[in-house]
């Protein structure tokens, strides 16, 4: 890796204590890098640990959750060694987040403009008037009329709320933007609009984006590199081209085959039988082993590490063994 990454995640492991007192390993040994100005996609099915990864990075895990191992280097700082007070400075100013359901992510009793304004003032970035100007600029930038600053979230449509959320995320000019399923609840056309907006913003501001989604199509559309997650682990990690055209992990392969393609009508779709593992009761070997169509006996015993199969292409599958040492 020649260039120094903006965010480097290594061996991130997060556990939850369920209300029943069981331990669920939500993330295990998650590693990836986010380069400056790059978009990285985190894809996986529900329960694969995508959102937990984001929350761990922001250090906003819900009750019962804790990071038990790993390192998260933001530039030269390990975010995991900061105190909560120090961490607060990083939030929004260095890394902002756009949540899935923008209806619920905006405070219903506060004017949209005020919510953006609040974010700016919280970090003492500028004076009141300048902040006010910035609020309107930001709204305009995401395609919302300046006059709608004083409206409440319920007066916005779904797409507008997501835009407003993006505007708010940009309020403190962060270096890194997390987008957690930003388009999931939206119609295809609005989805396309929002994705386009994200692309434009990235081009204009040069920030790095971590896009979390279950939609392989969305990832293919906007991401430079992709992390495929399964059962709380990274199954495969590489450039978008690697993942879509030279997928090495059986899971990735199947997932791609299962994805219907509008350009190829009439194709047969593949499906993956079975269900994802329960995080409280993980198999001893490979997480995907029970559903894998190419498994061998060893798969049920060995938990495969993440190995580099070709430059910048990492796979966690025992069948790819013999490749280089794992990503550390």
């Amino acid at each position, binding site marked *: 890796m020649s260039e120094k990454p903006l965010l480097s995640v290594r061996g991130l492991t997060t556990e939850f204590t369920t209300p029943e007192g069981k331990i669920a390993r939500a993330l295990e040994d998650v590693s990836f890098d986010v380069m400056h100005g790059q978009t990285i996609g985190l894809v996986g099915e529900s329960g694969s640990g995508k959102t937990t990864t984001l929350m761990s990075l922001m250090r906003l895990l819900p009750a019962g959750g804790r990071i038990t191992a790993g390192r998260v280097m933001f530039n030269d700082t390990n975010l995991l060694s900061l105190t909560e007070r120090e961490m*607060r400075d990083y939030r929004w100013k260095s890394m902002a987040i756009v*949540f899935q359901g923008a209806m*619920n*992510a*905006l405070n219903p*009793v506060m004017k949209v403009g005020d919510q953006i304004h609040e974010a700016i003032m*919280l970090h003492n970035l500028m004076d009141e008037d300048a902040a006010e100007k910035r609020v309107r600029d930001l709204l305009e930038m995401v395609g919302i009329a300046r006059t709608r600053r004083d409206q409440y979230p*319920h*007066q916005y449509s779904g797409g507008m709320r997501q835009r407003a959320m993006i505007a708010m995320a940009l309020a403190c000019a962060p270096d890194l933007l997390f987008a957690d399923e930003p388009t999931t609840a939206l119609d295809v056309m609005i989805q396309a609009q929002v994705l386009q907006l994200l692309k434009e913003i990235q081009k204009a501001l040069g920030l790095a984006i971590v896009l979390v989604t279950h939609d392989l199509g969305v990832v293919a559309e906007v991401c430079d590199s992709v992390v495929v997650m399964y059962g709380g682990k990274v199954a495969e990690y590489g450039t978008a081209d690697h993942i879509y055209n030279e997928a090495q992990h059986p899971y990735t392969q199947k997932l791609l085959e299962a994805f219907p393609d509008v350009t190829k009508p009439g194709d047969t779709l593949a499906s993956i039988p079975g269900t994802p593992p329960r995080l409280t009761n993980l198999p001893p070997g490979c997480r995907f082993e029970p559903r894998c169509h190419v498994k061998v006996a060893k798969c049920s015993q060995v938990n495969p590490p993440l190995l580099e199969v070709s430059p910048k292409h990492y796979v966690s599958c025992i069948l790819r063994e013999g490749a280089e040492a794992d990503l550390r």
Partner: protein
Amino acid sequence: MARRDYLLGKFGIALLTLLFVLLLDFILFRVLPGDPIRAVIGRNVRISAEVQESLRAQFGLDKPVFPDQFVDTLGQWAQGNLGVSWSQRKPVSEILISKLWNTLLLIGLGQLLSIVLGAILGLLAGWKRKTPFDVGALTFSLIAWATPTFWLGIILLVAGSTWFGLPTGGIVSPENVGKPLHTVIPDVARHLILPTLTFTILYLGEYMLIMRSSILEVLSEDYILTARAKGMSHFQVLTKHGLRNAMLPMVTIIALNLGFTVSGAIYIETVFSYDGLGNLVQTALVKQDYPLLQGAFLLLAVSVIIANMLADFLYTYLDPRVKAN
């Protein structure tokens, strides 16, 4: 537009309720057996037939029940003429007005304290969920909720008068009646301690519970996560985003609670011989003074209806969503 519709709707309900109360009050009064005039005539009173007739006319008893008597009665009520108390032989409205302020003082003070304290403690309990503080607050609330109002009053009366020498009843010491204000206020305050305390303890628990569950609900909303992601401290999140949203159910409950507050006043005023409407209601009940009882019911119901309207009005200011629908 939508807000106007909302308020008009609420106003409609209020009118409907008012009509219902009036009709109920009227029917109940007529449903009583016997001739009310008979009972007005006291044990030692030798009242002439003419006087009886005039009383009968005043009560509208010489006309058909509906609609004449109803219309007459409504007219009388509208003029503030709620009939004559049987036990006190004074106009009911006069008696009611003289007690109203005392009750407002007690309820106002009790509500203010319990709402403010309840909101604060509930907020803290919800925030620090499952901590000893929360468990303590919860236990207190549940017990306060389960305690009969009047019994708590009795216990506090015994404890307060025995251990702290606090007055056990009334609103002002006899020697202070008619004295200048600066002498009276501390005395009235002393008399208010126990009833207000009872009031506060009872409603504090309830408001605390509501605030707690309300803030728990709010804190699990995504916009709280947004606020935290913005880099706000817990305290900032709680006060800037949590409180106002959590206050919304509180306002609704407080409005709905007004009726129960009146119940509380009846019990507490009875126990502490506090000279207000509640005590009056109890006395009227014991003395079977129906004009007084029904007049008091009318006044209390109308007050609550009005207060409810005000709460609805306030709500539209607190929750912008109502404005839009």
